[in-house]
Each structure stands twice: as structure tokens, then as C-alpha cells.
């Protein structure tokens, strides 16, 4: 356990160092454009799994959190010209509040009702933003990137590194939760909420914690996207594709371990980037749907489950 922790942090530092080195050495902009999207999906999938994987509440509102993150940044830039770190922190705070509200929803609904409610929430928020003239309404809004910040050669390269930082943060939180009593509590309420409550697991508090953390991370991941695209409009910021992509990445990777969503996001994110360039974005969505169905039917525990089966021991091992 202790040794694992050291390995984990060495890995994290190496990953960040590599990302930083890449921004200094590679001059071609494309790897950063593509890499940014993959990193963004890594944060979203890891954040989603904190609620969806450990606690078993299927949140289809990923796009709501992502979109609110985008629009928090848009609003802050337009109103105060706020710098990127402020955008991300405020987005995380709003995401935490939204997560709290979502946590209260779990009091009354479970299973498909919770999922449907999260879709409903997404559409209601999207419609509100669409009717809010100040942030551009349905037509969307253009945003100017500020001047380049040293030591990064371009703004996209900086965003790439910032998103890499968020990835490490998200994974560290998810890993901590998995190995602490919070994770065990969440897993117990996923298996049987009533039984968990009866044996003294504080289910409501745990669900609220999971929702708040998951929501804050998703919104934080969305905030830099405004600057990345230099443009925001409601129908793409709140697109249901984000929700389904993140769900697919998490389930394909496997939700039993923090590494699952990371693997899923890298695998699917990379495939999507390649397909978008080589074929078309429609085929992209088709592959997403087909992979989701195949994995859910054929390998319900995802890649993590497949690996465990190959190694020949059941679940329950911790890293």
C-alpha cells in the first residue's frame, strides 16, 4: 500500500514532466489540440466514475456539468476578464454546488429515475443558457484568448498542460476515495443501499460527498474548453454526446478501479481523434455506440475485468 503510493506519485510527476517537456520540444500544434481533448475526457471519466462507478448512480448529466464549466468561464471572461486559474476555481465551486443539488436528488430517486432526472436537468439548464442573451444565447459567443503566458510557446500548449494537471488531481482524488473508507462506504451502498444504511453507513453523507467531488471536477474540466475553442454555444457545450462518451469510456475501461476510466478514456479518446481526422465525426459516434453495446453485453466489468479474469483472480484487489 505504502509502496504503491510512492510509485503512484512518481508516475504522476513523470507524467507531468513529460507533458511539460512536450510543450517545450514539440512545435507542431496538432498533438496538443488532439491531446487536450483526450486529457479532458480522462478528467470527465474519472470524475464520472466517482459517482457512477463507486456508488452506482448513473449520471447522464455530464454534459450539464461540462457546459456549466464552459459558461462559467465565458461569463467570468466577459464580465471581469478573469484569468484562467480563477475561471477553473470558480467553475469547480459552482460544480460543487450543482453536485450538492444532484446529491439531494438521490434522496428521492434511484436507478433509471435518477438517470432520466439528470438528462432532464441538462436540458433545463441548456434551455436557460440558450435564453440568456448576455452569454450569447443560442447563437453562441466568441472569446478572445489573452496573450501567451510564459513559459509556454502558445496558449493551446498551456491549456494542454493545465488539463494534464487536472488529470493528475482527478486521479489522485479518485484513488484516495477508492482506498479510503469513503470508497468502501460507496461500494456498500451500491450493492445494497438499505442494508448499508442499516449497518450504520452514512449513505446520504457519502452520496453528497461523491456528488460534490464529481461535479466540481467535471465543471473544472469544462472551464478551459471555452478558451480552447475560443467559442461557446449551448447546443455543443451541453451536447448529450459528452454524457454518452464519458459513460462509454468509464464502462469500457471498467468502473471497479480508478485506472478503468483512465484506460477507457485514452483508448476511446484516441480512437475518436483518429477517426474524426480520417473518416468523419458521424462514424465516430457510431463506433462509440457499437463499442458501448459490445462491452456492456460482452464484458460487463470492462477492460479491468477482462485483465483480472486473464490473471486468474477475482475482484477485490486494491492498488
Amino acid at each position, binding site marked *: 500500500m505504502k509502496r504503491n503510493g510512492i510509485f503512484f506519485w512518481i508516475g504522476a510527476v513523470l507524467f507531468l514532466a513529460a507533458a511539460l517537456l512536450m510543450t517545450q520540444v514539440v512545435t507542431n500544434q496538432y498533438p496538443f489540440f488532439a491531446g487536450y481533448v483526450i486529457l479532458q475526457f480522462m478528467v470527465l471519466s474519472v470524475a464520472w466514475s466517482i459517482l457512477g462507478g463507486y456508488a452506482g448512480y448513473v449520471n447522464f448529466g455530464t454534459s450539464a456539468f461540462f457546459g456549466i464549466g464552459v459558461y462559467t468561464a465565458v461569463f467570468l471572461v466577459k464580465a471581469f476578464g478573469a484569468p484562467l486559474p480563477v475561471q477553473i476555481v470558480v467553475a469547480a465551486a459552482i460544480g460543487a454546488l450543482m453536485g450538492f443539488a444532484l446529491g439531494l436528488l438521490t434522496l428521492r430517486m434511484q436507478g433509471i429515475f435518477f438517470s432520466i432526472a439528470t438528462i432532464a436537468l441538462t436540458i433545463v439548464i441548456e434551455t436557460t443558457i440558450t435564453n440568456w442573451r448576455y452569454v450569447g444565447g443560442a447563437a453562441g459567443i466568441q472569446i478572445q484568448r489573452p496573450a501567451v503566458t510564459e513559459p509556454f510557446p502558445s496558449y493551446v500548449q498551456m491549456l494542454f498542460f493545465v488539463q494534464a494537471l487536472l488529470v493528475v488531481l482527478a486521479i489522485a482524488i479518485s484513488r484516495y476515495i477508492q482506498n479510503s473508507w469513503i470508497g468502501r462506504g460507496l461500494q456498500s451502498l451500491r450493492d445494497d443501499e438499505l442494508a448499508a444504511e442499516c449497518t450504520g453507513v452514512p449513505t446520504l453523507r457519502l452520496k453528497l460527498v461523491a456528488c460534490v467531488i464529481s461535479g466540481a471536477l467535471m465543471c473544472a474540466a469544462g472551464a478551459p474548453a471555452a478558451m480552447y475553442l475560443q467559442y461557446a454555444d449551448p447546443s455543443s457545450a451541453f451536447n448529450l454526446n459528452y454524457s454518452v462518451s464519458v459513460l462509454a469510456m468509464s464502462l469500457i475501461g471498467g468502473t471497479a478501479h480508478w485506472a478503468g476510466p483512465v484506460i477507457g478514456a485514452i483508448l476511446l479518446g484516441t480512437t475518436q481523434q483518429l477517426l474524426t481526422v480520417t473518416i468523419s465525426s458521424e462514424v465516430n459516434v457510431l463506433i462509440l455506440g457499437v463499442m458501448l453495446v459490445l462491452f456492456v*453485453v460482452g464484458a460487463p466489468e470492462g477492460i479491468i475485468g477482462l485483465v483480472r479474469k486473464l490473471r486468474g483472480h477475482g475482484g477485490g484487489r486494491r492498488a
Partner: protein
Amino acid sequence: LFSFDLLQDALVIGVLLGCFYAAVSLGLSVAFGLLDVPHVAHPAFLVLASYAVYFLNEHFGIDPLLAGLLITPLFFMFGLIAYRLYYETFEKRGTDAGVRGIAFFFGIAFIIEVLIILQFGVDQRSVTADYVGKAWRIGDMRIPFRLLVAFAVAAALTILLTLYLSRTFMGRAIRAVAQDQEALRLMGANPIRIKQWAFGLATAVLGIAGALLIIVAPVEPTLDRTYIGRTFCVVVMAGLGSMTGTLVAGIILGVAETIVLTLFGASWAPAISFGMLLCVLAVRPQGLFGRLS
């Protein structure tokens, strides 16, 4: 801004539209309300049916309603296969059907959406028939024929399905399986066969519902996303599995949508069904005509 005439118009159109909403939700009312299948792909099947009707209408000049009737057997088979797949992979294993069942149907919905885009493109499509585009004038009020046709067919469909579920042997069996599957098994009946039949029926109804959808307004491949809100709103508000409730809930949604549309404009339209759905889930999860479980 507000006038009695406007309200009257909104009410009439709302009721007509509401019956149409009930018709497109009937299948989900059976699949989700009675059989507890988290059928999020229902609206995607609906849009698929609309495109099938469009295809028959465009290439062979078949009347949309007749085309809808023609594709029902196909959709019935489709439903049988879909339920069998769902049962074999999720219900039978009993493993975590909640999470993965929803993901499964979402995946299917996405696949259908993209296949439609690849085949027909992203443009809006509509059908041609004598009653599309004409209107009936009563005084100052103008009622489009297409809404009247949709209303009549929707009402007939709802009544037929209600009668089927309450009067016929198979219909009663479907309601029995919704109440207590184990009891049915003990009586020597096969609940899975009955559920499969019911799911087939729920999907078959979509053939005609899809025809109504494309008669009422032009369709586009991603239309199913809006109808997730409408259909689930109607079914949950109705109380799971209640056919009369489906009709009443459909009319409530239709009237609410038309009134908001007249008062605040079309940009708020998508929020109404989803907003009502949220309210119903939060305040009265068992719906208007629901049985408490």
C-alpha cells in the same frame, strides 16, 4: 400579450397535440411502465419508424398512415429481438441490470441515430399526403388537418390498446406479468414469453406512432433527444403502465407546451417536458394514476 382568444387556441391545439404525445408514449408505457425495461431507445425507434415511413412515401408514394401500418410487423419482430437480447444479457444474469441496461439502450439509440444520418443525411424530412399542409377554419381559429389526423389516430390507438390490455387473454396476461412475475411462473405460464410478446407489441405500436410523428412535423435524425423528455414525462406523469393516465398526461403536456410556446416563444419549448418530468419525479414519483409499489 395575454388574451382569451389566444388561450382558447392554445387549449384546442394543446389537446390535439397532447393526444399525439400520448400515442408516441404508449409503447414506452408498456415497455417501461409495465415491464420495467429502461427503454431509453424508445424515441430512437420512433424516429426510425418515421424515416421508414418517409422512405415508403417518397419512393413508392404510399400514404404515410398506410406505410406506418405496413411497417408494424417489421417493428414487432424488431421488438421481439430487442427484448430477447436484453433478457439474455441482463435480466437472466441479474447482474447490475440497472446501470448497464440503461447504457445498453443508450448505445442502441446512438447507433440508430448515426445509421439514419449516414443513410438520409442531417436534413429535415417530411411526407406528402392530401391532409398535410391544409387547415380547417372555425371562425378565427385555424386547425391544421395533420393535427386532426394525428389526434384521431392517436385516440383510436389508445382506446384499442386499453381494450386489448383489459379485455383479451394476452392483454390480461401482460398486466399479470407486470404485477407478479413469480406468481405467473407458479401457475405454469412462461413470463418471459409474455414479456417478449408485450415488448414486441410496444415496438409495433411505434410503426403507427412514427407515421404520426412525421405527419405532425418534419423529422430530423436527432429528434429522439427531445422525445426522450416528452415520452418519459408522459409515462412517469401517467403513473407507470396506466393507459388512461398516458392519455391524460399527454394532454397536460400538450396544453402546457402550447401555452408556454404562445406566451414565451419557441426557445423555451424543450425545457417544458423535461421541467415537468423533474417536478413529477420530485413531488409525485408514482404519477397521477400510479399504484404505490
